[in-house]
């Protein structure tokens, strides 16, 4: 008997999944993401206790290959790379969370206002997002940071400039479609005030997609900050930062340990956030083709 996939109209009847959120957390991807992310958060918190050396302490032991006493080797100033990689998490992780939170707030508010009021408010916000989207991410971030002066603070500002429009667009779209939706109209007819309708009906529906986007953006934030630091526009020496450490690594190519480990740290953190983001998306959108099926 040849087996062909079920027509879509039947999919809902025959494959509705009970308890979507519960089953999604048990997926291997989500677990891996939580374990990895949790590990890094733990590292960031416990670094003063775990790091074997002072990340800024220069010694005469230059360019040591990885060994028992220096797990990741030493760099061009004799500093222990393992400690520097660990300490750098104190920079990248909090900043990533901060960036995404701010982008969600700024973008969400602007997008919400644009969607709710429409008219010229909407036009202004939309044109602003268009302008930001017209530039490839790092180009704009690079230009902004360079113009303001290379420093971590300005790099953060630049990333913020580049991130808020996505949320503005998403929230605006959702607010507009929900504002016209039947059940919000019904709620209004029943006498609920506008603000109440906004909070109780609109917000939960907006939260889902925004949350997915935000989790994935955590990874993007880490990548972008690292990229800017790689260009010399973000964290300035001697601050340990993964991106700038990889840059140093490219200058001392044969000492492979100098660039490989910091880059690997970036990869693992971003991977963790992406695993989580994907699992979140699976859980929140039962109709999505990413949906898990037994």
């Amino acid at each position: 008997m040849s087996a062909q996939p079920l027509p879509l109209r039947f999919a809902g009847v025959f494959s509705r999944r009970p308890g979507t959120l519960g089953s999604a957390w048990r997926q291997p991807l989500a677990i891996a993401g939580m374990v990895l992310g949790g590990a890094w958060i733990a590292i960031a918190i416990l670094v003063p206790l775990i790091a074997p050396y002072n990340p800024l302490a220069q010694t005469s032991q230059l360019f040591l290959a990885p060994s028992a006493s220096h797990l990741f080797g030493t760099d061009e100033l004799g500093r222990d790379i393992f400690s520097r990689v660990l300490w750098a998490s104190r920079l990248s992780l909090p900043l990533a969370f901060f960036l995404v939170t701010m982008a969600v707030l700024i973008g969400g508010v602007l997008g919400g206002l644009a969607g709710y009021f429409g008219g010229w408010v909407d036009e202004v916000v939309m044109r602003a997002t268009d302008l930001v989207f017209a530039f490839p991410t790092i180009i704009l971030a690079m230009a902004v940071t360079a113009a303001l002066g290379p420093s971590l603070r300005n790099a953060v500002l630049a990333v913020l400039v580049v991130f808020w429009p996505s949320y503005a667009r998403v929230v605006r779209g959702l607010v507009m479609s929900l504002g016209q939706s039947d059940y919000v109209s019904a709620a209004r007819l029943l006498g609920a005030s506008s603000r109440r309708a906004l909070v109780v009906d609109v917000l939960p529906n907006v939260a889902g997609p925004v949350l997915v986007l935000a989790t994935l953006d955590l990874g993007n934030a880490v990548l972008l900050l690292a990229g800017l630091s790689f260009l010399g526009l973000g964290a300035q020496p001697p601050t340990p930062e993964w991106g700038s450490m990889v840059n140093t690594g490219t200058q001392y190519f044969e000492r492979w340990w100098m660039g490989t480990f910091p880059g690997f740290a970036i990869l693992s953190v971003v991977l963790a956030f992406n695993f989580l983001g994907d699992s979140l998306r699976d859980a929140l959108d039962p109709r999505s083709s990413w949906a898990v099926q037994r």
Partner: protein
Amino acid sequence: MRFLGRRLAALVLLGIGITFVAFVLTELVPGDPAAANLGQRAIADPAAVQAFREHYGLDKPLPVQYVLYLEHLASGDLGQSEQSHRPVRTDLSEFVPATAELAVTSILIAFVLGISLGILSAVRRNRLTDQVLRVISLGGISMPVFWLALVALYVFFFKLGWVPGSGRLDPGVLPAPHVTGLYTVDALLAGQFDVFVSAAQHLILPACVLAAYNVGLLTRFTRSAVLEVINNDYVQAARAKGMPERTVVLRHVLRAALPPIITVGGLAFANVMTGTVLVESIFAWPGIGQYAFHSATTLDLPAIMGVSLFVAVVYIVVNFVVDILYGVVDPRIRVA
């Protein structure tokens, strides 16, 4: 036709908008642009400083400066690089072909590989192939591209010696007569096969590294687009007509899934541009990416702004082309 017209108008407006952004950014920079630009000459030669001021209208009010700025742009004057002391435009024209060659190759690899893997992943949904591909593609978009370049170069060049290390050609090999500036294409056109091989060998690693992120992105996008469509009524109808599954997937499903995949084209281009900035210097690839990288590390403002503006304009045009392609593939859009 109306569809095209509206898109073009939007494009022009956007173009003007980004010049405004670039202008504002330039104005934010503290300090005296004349001094920064002319360097030592500023101290020694007041006449030069004065000429500079007049050319850029530095003593005039801001709106006037903006208009002057636009005028300069219209005539192709992007300012002068503080490093090379040449017009940015000259620098760019020298470096664009190299990046063009890299970008086009990379995008081609990404689309062919990404779409194929995405279809495979969708058709084998939830089986082992799919799980593996999902993890791999997730890895692709989680990787810092500059790190990948470093590792790839170390492994494939330093350790394995499979590819040459830097530049576009082996030392001593001269490029074919200039037609497009893309060494591979020019070599083929001139029939110089050995040049072609050398150029291709140098091209392959950077192109693959740059393609990694996009392959991950496209695999995911294609998978999801195909799954959206694969059980639609019209696909079932095709099966009910007796068409074999392979034809159904490659003709009916892919065509319906193509529009969202095409929109990723613009994003893919942006990713490649981002990648070139970070990666060209690692491969000693003399393109605008390396130019931008160098300008960033030396804080050569005019060069940075010039490159940003140029890339943004190209990006806008690419998005425009993507929009057109979307209309070509999906006839319903042409009427809208």
